[in-house]
């Protein structure tokens, strides 16, 4: 076993929450190691062109870009902060009453011969963020159907538009920046479809709207995207969804439909639209595998439970950002500042504590206004693939549910192979839980248990358990 590095504060994740946590812990005087899987800081939110291709006006695609650059440069220049880029955490070993040992492989994504490192932190901050959730629909596995996040990542990180004529659909405010990025990358956006209807949106946003004033920065960001919709004449419809994608080897058209308040397609409202790409996203799911592996208690909705100091149920393990519930960048930064301060044994900055309260309120509204409604399952016919890795259809899942009654996830996986593929249920897990939920088969969050956080090569697994002077 490689000798573990002792480190006062270890932060996992170099997005907004992790960067803020690292800064706050440094201000508190502690030495920090910040581990980030990609080759730059910023996370998905501040994803940008690589160093080989600097852009003069990167700020046009980002909110808070200059603030990000300042924070990033501070961290990279700070000799007390060791930023480990290309650091892939693959496992954590629980220890009673203190933070776990953290095992990292450093090198290219999915590369061979990455260098193993182990850390023994006094305080561990997990800021692993979230990934997108896309509800399945017939044809959603055709090439040309992307998550909204993929469109965003390719636009920001590569200046590639996923199509020429693109439909953006799903739920939540994230669809708006995606449409903005697409038009600034040369695509024509045929429309933005929000599944939530006017009633659902008003209930979320309309009750106590004065509280929104406190979250002005966020409201201002959204207003900018709404201006883009008008400037580029992008139709925006609520209570509408893509209910099927058509094509043989790629998307050629989609069927869109009006939805009831419960998200059931209204019969007779279907319309066919010619597009060459669809970007679909229905909110985000916290990436909880490391928190779960560390033993942190979850809430019923699958997010990680924390106290006022961002402490999890495991001593010395703090949580910041989307892991505690989807809330966006401002909440992530506020939580990061609190977590980093507490990790350094300091009192959190009062402004961060106040900001956190305001942005949590905002997040609660988002959750209510755009929450997934169960009617989506009625557009999923039995032939629709749910698990993309193993091609398990909704029909197979439903018949297993009908035949076997209430049984565990393990037997379900072995019967259908669902969630046994390389993505380990990240893509389909929540949808599977909802399809099987009424049969009592799966509770929320059950598919998020993953013993290995990332797929490993066997050689690396062997090497990482061997003592080696060169790897320290």
């Amino acid at each position, binding site marked *: 076993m490689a000798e573990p590095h002792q480190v006062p504060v270890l932060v996992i994740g170099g997005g907004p929450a992790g960067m803020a946590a690292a800064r706050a812990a440094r201000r508190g005087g502690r030495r920090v190691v910040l581990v980030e*899987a990609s080759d730059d800081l910023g996370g998905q939110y501040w994803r940008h062109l690589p160093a*080989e291709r600097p852009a003069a006006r990167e700020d046009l695609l980002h909110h808070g870009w200059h603030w990000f650059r300042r924070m990033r440069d501070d961290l990279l220049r700070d000799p007390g902060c060791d930023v480990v880029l290309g650091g892939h955490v693959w496992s954590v070993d629980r220890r009673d009453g203190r933070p776990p040992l953290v095992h990292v492989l450093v090198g290219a994504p999915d590369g061979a011969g990455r260098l193993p490192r182990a850390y023994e932190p006094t305080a561990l901050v997990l800021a692993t963020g979230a990934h997108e959730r896309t509800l399945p629909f017939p044809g959603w596995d055709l090439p040309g159907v992307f998550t909204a996040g993929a469109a965003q990542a*390719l636009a920001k990180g590569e200046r590639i538009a*996923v199509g020429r004529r693109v439909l953006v659909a799903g739920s939540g405010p994230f669809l708006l920046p995606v449409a903005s990025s697409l038009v600034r990358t040369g695509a024509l956006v045929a429309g933005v479809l929000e599944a939530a209807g006017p009633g659902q949106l008003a209930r979320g946003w309309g009750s106590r709207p004065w509280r929104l004033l406190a979250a002005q920065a966020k409201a201002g960001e959204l207003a900018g995207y709404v201006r883009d919709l008008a400037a580029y004449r992008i139709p925006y419809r609520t209570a509408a969804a893509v209910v099927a994608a058509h094509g043989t080897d790629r998307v050629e058209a989609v069927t869109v439909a009006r939805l009831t308040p419960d998200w059931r397609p209204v019969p007779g409202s279907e319309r066919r639209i010619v597009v060459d790409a669809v970007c679909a996203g229905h909110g985000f799911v916290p990436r909880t595998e490391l928190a779960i592996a560390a033993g942190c208690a979850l809430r019923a909705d699958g997010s990680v439970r924390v106290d006022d100091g961002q402490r999890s149920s495991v001593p010395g393990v703090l949580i910041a950002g989307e892991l505690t519930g989807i809330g966006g960048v401002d909440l992530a930064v506020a939580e990061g500042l609190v977590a980093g301060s507490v990790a350094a044994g300091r009192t959190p900055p009062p402004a961060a504590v106040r900001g956190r309260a305001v942005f949590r309120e905002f997040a609660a509204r988002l959750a209510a206004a755009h929450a997934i409604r169960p009617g989506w399952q009625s557009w999923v016919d039995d032939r629709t693939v749910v698990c993309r890795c193993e091609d398990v259809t909704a029909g197979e899942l439903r018949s297993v549910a009908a035949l076997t009654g209430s049984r565990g996830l393990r037997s379900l996986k072995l019967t259908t192979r669902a969630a046994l593929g390389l993505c380990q249920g990240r893509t389909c897990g929540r949808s599977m839980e909802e399809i099987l939920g009424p049969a009592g088969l799966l509770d929320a969050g059950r598919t998020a248990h993953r013993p290995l956080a990332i797929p490993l090569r066997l050689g690396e697994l062997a090497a990482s358990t061997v003592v080696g002077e060169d790897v320290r």
Partner: protein
Amino acid sequence: MPPPDGPFRPADDPIRPAPAGTVRIEVAGEPVQGVAGQTIAGILLAGGRLAWRRSRTGRPRGVFCGIGVCFDCLVVVNGLRDVRACQRRAADGDRVEFQEDDRG
């Protein structure tokens, strides 16, 4: 604002990226040129390729999530299987092949 039905030329790009170098790789035996710093998925998409893998039952797969979560976009790089094309930046001389043997 670029013409919506024309190609997106660097000159139209509002964020004004600096002129970038090139990266030369081999895709299924053919020489392919990309922009320095691009991922393998980026080079494939920019070349008009949307799918390069088949699922277990033979359905075409390419990029879906774009952030390394879904594992749809796997390729073989320099003989090593199961590399996420959306996560791996292309390096000069990389040999990229398509993995066709995922079918069960």
